[in-house]
């Protein structure tokens, strides 16, 4: 007998659940957040994820794309994915309307080490769409703010129009997140910081570097500079975490595409401790 996507758990890692687009939020140019609901209530009731994990979004006839989950892990009504148009799958997704269905496999991959941040200061360092995989971590940190020390977001973009989720910043600040933004190029009346994100870390006052955790997502060169800055400020390298990106085809460690040295980014990552990949981050063509 063949089986369908009804019923739990999904023992076949190749089988996608059906999801329906419940709403779409336009974020910035070419970037929208898709609010998804499972069509099978049994799946909706049991699906859970950790901050930093991703799903494979499957557009039948087109293919799959690995997209990090960007909603609050404590809220189960809707599953959000913030997606930039970059290829065939994401372009097809952008053309779908509310009510359309497609497939979803997941959640996959490792998570930001939120529990390990207890009683420590946390600095989130990211740029552009890199904030999307960190938003669930921000939600969870703020939901449990009393368990952590100072929470800081250092966020940059090429220009101010590339900053995501700015409509939520006031609420995040009111709940205890210290937010610093920067842009590569000032435009449109921008009066804030100009420069790359690691420079924000260079200048950030630190209470207790030995007990500070850095969560970083961005281009490999940006993560390398961020880690170098963090280490230079006395933050231990085992408290610096980065989120890697590679071509992910299967998401379950079987297809070989996403290898980064010994790391299968899909199952050992995307979130890894910096010192586990430090030797490879600056190797060209690796």
């Amino acid at each position, binding site marked *: 007998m063949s089986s369908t996507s009804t019923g739990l758990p999904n023992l076949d890692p190749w089988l*996608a659940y059906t999801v329906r687009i419940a709403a779409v939020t336009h974020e910035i140019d070419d970037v929208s957040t898709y609010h998804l609901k499972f069509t099978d209530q049994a799946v909706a009731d049991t699906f859970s994820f950790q901050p930093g994990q991703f799903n494979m979004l499957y557009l039948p006839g087109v293919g799959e794309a690995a997209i990090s989950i960007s909603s609050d892990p404590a809220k189960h009504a809707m599953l959000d994915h913030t997606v930039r148009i970059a290829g065939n799958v994401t372009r097809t997704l952008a053309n779908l309307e509310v009510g359309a269905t497609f497939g979803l496999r997941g959640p996959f991959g490792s998570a930001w080490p939120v529990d390990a941040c207890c009683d420590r200061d946390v600095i989130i360092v990211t740029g552009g769409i890199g904030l999307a995989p960190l938003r669930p971590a921000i939600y969870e940190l703020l939901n449990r703010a009393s368990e952590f020390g100072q929470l800081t977001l250092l966020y940059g973009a090429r220009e101010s129009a590339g900053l995501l989720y700015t409509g939520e910043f006031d609420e995040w600040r009111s709940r205890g997140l210290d937010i610093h933004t920067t842009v590569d190029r000032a435009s449109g009346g921008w009066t804030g910081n100009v420069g790359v994100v690691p420079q924000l870390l260079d200048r950030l006052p630190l209470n207790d570097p030995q007990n500070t955790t850095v969560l970083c997502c961005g281009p490999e060169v940006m993560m390398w500079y961020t880690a170098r800055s963090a280490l230079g400020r006395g933050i231990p390298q085992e408290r610096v975490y980065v989120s890697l990106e590679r071509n992910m085809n299967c998401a379950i460690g079987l*297809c*070989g595409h996403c290898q980064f040295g010994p790391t299968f980014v899909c199952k050992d990552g995307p979130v890894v401790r910096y010192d586990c990949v430090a030797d490879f981050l600056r190797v060209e*063509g690796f």
Partner: protein
Amino acid sequence: MTTEYFLPKAALQSLIDCLHGDGFTVVGPTVEQSAIIYDEIESVDALPRGWTDRQEAAKYRLERRDDDSLFGFVVGPHSWKKYLFPPLTTLSSAQQSESGWQMQTPEADARKLAFLGVRACELAAIGIQDRVFTGGPYVDPVYNARRKNAFIIAVNCTQSASTCFCRSMNTGPRCSSGFDLALTELPDGFVIEVGSDAGTELLGRLATESVTAEQLEAAEQARQQAIDQQTKQLNTDSIRDLLLGNLDHPRWAEVGAICLGCTNCTMVCPTCFCSSVEDVADLSGENVERQRHWDSCFNLSFSYMSHGTARNTIAHRYRQWLTHKLASWHDQFDSSGCVGCGRCITWCPVGIDLTEEVATIRGNEAFCDLGTENEE
């Protein structure tokens, strides 16, 4: 101590017949297009009786033997992975309905495969792919279904090709585990060892004879010949750290300038498992299959990302293949990814020999003549 028996050559067909009777599809070596490949066989007449293979870097030739050996050769371009990890498989399907897309898994593959003639290096390769496809957090249902039904009849090598280096990889030439039955061919029959309960059960239905001391001695001598003939070596001392510590070695650019990026090495490798999944739709676009096909880290598109390709040059991709196979595989699966079968050397159209590449990076130029050949 394993119990050994003697199976007269005339009784080998009864082994195939028993497997057919049990519902197995029997796959074994056979000659096709001037090579010994693996295909479905009905009788012993399909086996490469009286043929042997002569192999060296970029060269494979069949030659007539002066006897009627059925397994008097080494390994060809095929490996058993084409049966356990099929080159093309449907993983799931999707149908558009009034309530939206519905996804389904295909019918489970219930086919029972019996492999006749699995060499020691290939047993090791199957063990490695077992760990890749069934040893992690996610089990591949296609591989798993075929693997758990497979019946394995190993054959001990009685000769080595110039490309063989299983002794360096500790995978052969002696078949020591991972089989149901194991044969050592003698002129008039096979000394046969049992490796599982299923093997014992099958053997009980065959016209075996008790084995004589002379037959055991002859089998030992035949197996020793494979050891004595093997000359190629790969020094595996600290090989993981050697390769991952030399990612900027100039040799990568040199081998990258010779390598064609043709993917032959990865296609013939019995452990390479890279694949890609693509959608195949009917004309209506409402019935779609997810199909997995073998892919290769030598293909440019393999490391494609929306903002660029991770490994842009052939040198990058050769480095990825070799460092994965011999180095990071240890981190991932607790063993080397290489079993020393030599296929990648034989079937490389320009004769790149990974043992020479490692020796060069190790600084042992004695093993390396490829570089000097290509100097102006």
